[in-house]
């Protein structure tokens, strides 16, 4: 058992922390308030390869496709400074670019990956609809084959990166066998006729991240754009979500870490009744619990990443990591606001943003309830 990071991973951690503190920290509050991603920071993130982390070098990526631990380090470190800036490249790479690498044909890889890896094009994975989300089987967006093209109709909602994406993975109903829906994942390009972006949502947290509705009206998609074979959408979709969950967990570990660091600093500085509030047991217990919860979540997260890198089945561990990390972040940010007192309610203090961002984590990429269902099903079916 070896918990140490490699020298390469340490360097990735150090550089990403320096980058996040220099470029993202100063604009984090502004990003949250105006719901915008500063183009100057986006440009630097693209230059540094954060949009192509998990893509092999031969397709223009950073070459961390077999090093999910490093991808988690990056996502955690950026998440430690700002959740929106962490999930924008994180979602792009983990649930759009990476699946094209894993499930795509060589032609699809060569065509779609280089611009995605460089961040010249942004990616999205869209499953959720008005009547489908937790229940993936409820997908109503459908497609039928017409000659050499599939004709797609329907809409998706709450798609992360939706409004700014160029390459979109769309989970679509392509048939029905008995009671079972047959799903297929299509690679849609934003310049295809009939595709449009609907409403951009105004959210509680992770506000700079773009969450939008996607609308498809007779979008004609060439047959070559089917990802992983017709009818394999359910299986592929779940695999994609499994991988994405590890990164979501890493982002939330970073968020919890940020809340803990802010709380430690504030508790040591804030004086009441003639001494720092860190000397009061009520505060100490909160700090201790935050530390324990975040570290537990971190261990689960990196264990899932390690399992993924070593070819082990990480589905169960990934769900545990996502569940634990989202609840640890929620608890930590909740306590962080409490420790900060009235200051914690103010926009001027980052913990106010952390608290709102953490609530998102318990819902997106699989709610806590769905994680518990998945975990229970796996445990009950095969034991532990």
């Amino acid at each position, binding site marked *: 058992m070896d918990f140490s990071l490699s*020298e390469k991973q340490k*360097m990735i951690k150090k550089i990403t922390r320096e980058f996040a503190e220099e470029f993202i920290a100063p604009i984090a509050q502004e990003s949250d308030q105006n719901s915008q991603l500063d183009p100057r920071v986006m440009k630097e993130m693209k230059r540094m390869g954060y949009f192509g982390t998990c893509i092999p070098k031969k397709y223009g990526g950073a*070459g961390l496709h077999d090093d999910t631990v490093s991808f988690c380090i990056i996502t955690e470190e950026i998440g430690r400074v700002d959740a929106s800036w962490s999930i924008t490249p994180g979602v792009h790479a983990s649930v759009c670019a990476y699946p094209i690498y894993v499930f795509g044909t060589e032609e699809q890889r060569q065509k779609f990956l280089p611009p995605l890896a460089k961040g010249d094009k942004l990616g999205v994975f869209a499953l959720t609809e008005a009547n489908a989300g937790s229940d993936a089987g409820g997908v109503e967006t459908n497609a039928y084959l017409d000659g050499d093209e599939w004709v797609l109709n329907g809409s998706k909602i709450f798609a992360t990166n939706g409004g700014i994406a160029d390459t979109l993975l769309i989970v679509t109903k392509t048939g029905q066998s008995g009671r079972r829906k047959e799903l297929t994942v299509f690679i849609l390009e934003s310049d295809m006729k009939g595709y449009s972006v609907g409403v951009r949502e105004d959210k509680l947290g992770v506000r700079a991240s773009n969450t939008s509705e996607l609308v498809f009206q007779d979008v004609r998609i060439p047959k070559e754009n089917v990802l992983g074979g017709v009818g394999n959408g359910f299986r592929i979709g779940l695999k994609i979500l499994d991988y994405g969950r590890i990164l979501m967990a890493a982002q939330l570990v970073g968020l919890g870490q940020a809340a803990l660091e802010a709380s430690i600093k504030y508790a040591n500085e804030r004086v009441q009744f003639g001494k720092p509030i860190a000397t009061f047991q009520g505060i100490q217990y909160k700090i201790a619990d935050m530390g324990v919860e975040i570290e537990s979540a971190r261990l689960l997260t990196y264990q899932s990443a390690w399992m993924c890198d070593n070819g082990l089945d990480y589905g169960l561990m990934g769900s545990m990591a996502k569940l634990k990390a989202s609840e640890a972040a929620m608890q930590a940010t909740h306590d962080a606001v409490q420790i900060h007192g009235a200051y914690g309610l103010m926009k001027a203090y980052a913990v106010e943003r952390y608290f709102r961002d953490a609530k998102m984590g318990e819902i997106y990429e699989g709610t806590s309830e769905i994680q518990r269902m998945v975990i229970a099903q796996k445990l009950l079916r095969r034991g532990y």
Partner: protein
Amino acid sequence: MKIIICIKQVPGISEVRIDPKTNTLIRQGIPSIMNPHDKHAVEIATVLKEEQKAEVIAISMGPPQAEEVLREALSMGADKAYLLTDRAFAGADTLATSHTLALAIKKIIKESKKGEKYLVICGTQAIDGDTAQVGPEIAEELGIPQITYVQKFELKGNKITIERVFRTEEVVIIEANLPALISVLPEINQPKYPTMGGIVSAFEEKEVIKWGEKDLNAKKESIGLTGSMTEVWKIFTPERKGQHIILEGTLEEVSKQLCEVLKEDKLI
């Protein structure tokens, strides 16, 4: 063309604390970093690499853990790195250090194509020792021109044109033919962070070659402690004397307060 950059690993703080009993640096709990000036040298080298199709070689003398800063240089775009590490090199002053680095540079040049031009780039000074001597001493050892305190730089063909800060206010422009050594000021550029792909290459595709005393055919009397002409007699942090007060308020209020304080102390 070869561009050789000299890099030092230093404690990551601007104010170094000294153990008053042993007169040595307190290193405990302080991370090691690449000397900030040297990052500017690496940046220049990687830009030149693109323009001139040059090979960038980073060298450092230090303990085995100094490999870390060489890996960082490789991440930023250097092609190859040499770590000069040997117990025999320990305790070196600037003279013995520059002698050792110069031996390595000579070896690198000897092993390269005949007549291949080269440029050595150093940061002006290291934030721990602050001597600014190693660059110039390397140039002397190599018998090549040296230009220090460079704040602007251009290379055309075999000729470099630089702007050098002179007596803090004046700037002089100097030309020199290669080979040459320059030591650069932070003003020369803004170092870029390494890319993620660059870090992967640095650890998975590039090499840090370790050279010791024997590899360099170094003479005992010229390296390490024995090769050092200077001896550190005492290092200390100056004691903070006197008190300071912070005046607060508008410019007008602060000016008034300042006048009162100066009058009180009979300074005006």
